């Protein structure tokens, strides 16, 4: 069992290769180096929490996995695909296999929750019948309703997305991700900008849904209780690489808080302090 008494990592007895394999990953933004030779392997079915101070490259790492951000150097192999070598149609096919939940839910505001979930089917099919619930075939509508049911929002199906609360919007975004039928789920601070209860509910939902389907989950969170409670493994980033890699069961909130206090970000003190010093001069 994981920290909060949620389902444990399924053990079918067969060793499975890593779903995500990163080697020698480097990324800089201008003069500032964010990642410097990062290596990481994530086995199938694992829930991994990425933690670290702001600017340590957690979100950048998630974005590089689906190539929303280009890496400067290194190898990225995800679901057996050499991500940096993909392009055009092959990149689209690869992205269709990876579900991403953003910090901001990124729903289309003026349409119904159900239509937003129907959009998830665009991972598998294109054309006008995937643009809105009113155009979608019955099977797609039913699957979208089942996804909304799974996140507990079937009763809000026809409500406009911009009339939903933050927590409800994030649930719809998760339902859209489920509609995609992903093999890997990435979540970039899905619990941010939500009140503590809603944030915890979202993390619990995400964890349960991915665990039930045996999916690999990689999430970024600044909530130490969520990192411990909803992951099997916690990886802490600092100084451009992995500064901590531990099983969640062995972690305590106080230790993780201490990690935040002690681990500096990659940028040197001089680089970080320069704008401040210039402003004071």
């Amino acid at each position, binding site marked *: 069992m994981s920290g909060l008494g949620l389902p444990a990592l399924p053990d079918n007895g067969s060793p499975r290769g890593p779903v995500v394999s990163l080697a020698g990953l480097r990324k800089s933004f201008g003069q500032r180096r964010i990642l410097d030779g990062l290596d990481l392997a994530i086995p199938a079915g694992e829930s991994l929490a990425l933690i670290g101070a702001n600017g340590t490259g957690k979100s950048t790492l998630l974005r590089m996995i689906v190539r929303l951000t280009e890496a400067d150097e290194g190898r990225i192999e995800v679901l057996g695909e050499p991500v940096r070598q993909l392009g055009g149609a092959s990149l*689209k096919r690869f*992205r269709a296999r*990876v579900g991403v939940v953003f910090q901001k839910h990124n729903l*289309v505001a*003026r*349409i119904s929750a159900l239509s937003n979930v129907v959009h*998830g089917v665009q991972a598998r099919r*294109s054309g006008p019948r*995937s643009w809105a619930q009113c155009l979608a075939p019955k099977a797609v509508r039913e699957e979208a309703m089942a996804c909304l049911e799974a996140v507990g929002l079937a009763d809000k199906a026809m409500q406009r997305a911009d009339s939903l609360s933050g927590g409800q919007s994030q649930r719809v975004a998760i339902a859209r991700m489920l509609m995609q039928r992903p093999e890997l789920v990435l979540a970039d601070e899905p619990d941010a900008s939500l009140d503590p209860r809603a944030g915890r509910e979202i993390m619990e939902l995400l964890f349960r849904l991915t665990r039930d389907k045996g999916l690999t989950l990689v999430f970024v969170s600044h909530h130490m209780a969520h990192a411990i409670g909803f992951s099997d493994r916690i990886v802490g980033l600092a100084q451009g690489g992995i500064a901590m890699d531990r099983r969640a069961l062995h972690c305590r909130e106080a230790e993780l808080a201490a990690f935040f206090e002690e681990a500096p970000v990659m940028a040197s003190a001089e680089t970080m302090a320069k704008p401040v010093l210039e402003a004071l001069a």
Partner: protein
Amino acid sequence: MSLTSDLHAGPGDRFARPSAAAFTGGFLALALLIWSFSGSELSAEKLIRGIPAMGNIIGRMFPPDLGRLDAILASLASTFQMAVSGCVLGLVLSFPLAILAADGLSPHPVIRALSRGLIAFFRTVPDLIWALFFVIAVGLGPAAGVLALMIDTIGYAGRFFAEAMEETDKGPREALSTIGASRTGLIFSAVVPNATPSFIATSLFCVEKATRASVVLGLVGAGGIGVELKVAFDLFDYDTALTIILAVFALVVLVEQVGGYLRRRII
């Protein structure tokens, strides 16, 4: 100098002399104004001399002659038909052109530049010039007016549709792009729904604009009530001209009111 001594130095000179650049700019603006008025041949003497003539024309306009009201209303209906059809054709064609011209949605920068150039060209040439062109091309009558209004609408709506799509929230676009959605799917799923209020506002304004423009197009033979107005003035039939002006005024006000109501209801 320390901050304290600055504070005790008193207020600065509030009437600082303008810089050389500001002075030159002001001088050039004044020169442009004088040059423009000198070319307009407008003078107080002319205005004073024109007042009796204006009074005479206005006096002869009253009371408006309703004798040809049936013909005027039929012509007004034809004008409105011309405005609606030209405008709708223009709006329909604006949409794909706006997608090609929108930053982030256009398939290629060259296509985007060409589309923007075409829209700008349609917008910068006045509708009256387009009407003259189409009168020569397809002959006198409403068809020329419809085509002129269509081009004028593309020039206006094409630009505003493209801007509305560019300004939509990038988040849903990124979310669908991450799913692996096609460009068309992304446009119709994430961009169009969010840009719809702007599309509606622009379309309603285009109908209002086309209604006003369609009156003038008749003056160059592009059909509609403009022809009636020109004939009335040419024959010094000012009381009929007033009836036409009032009919046009009523139509434009009606279209603007309905447009405003729809904007409030839909958006």
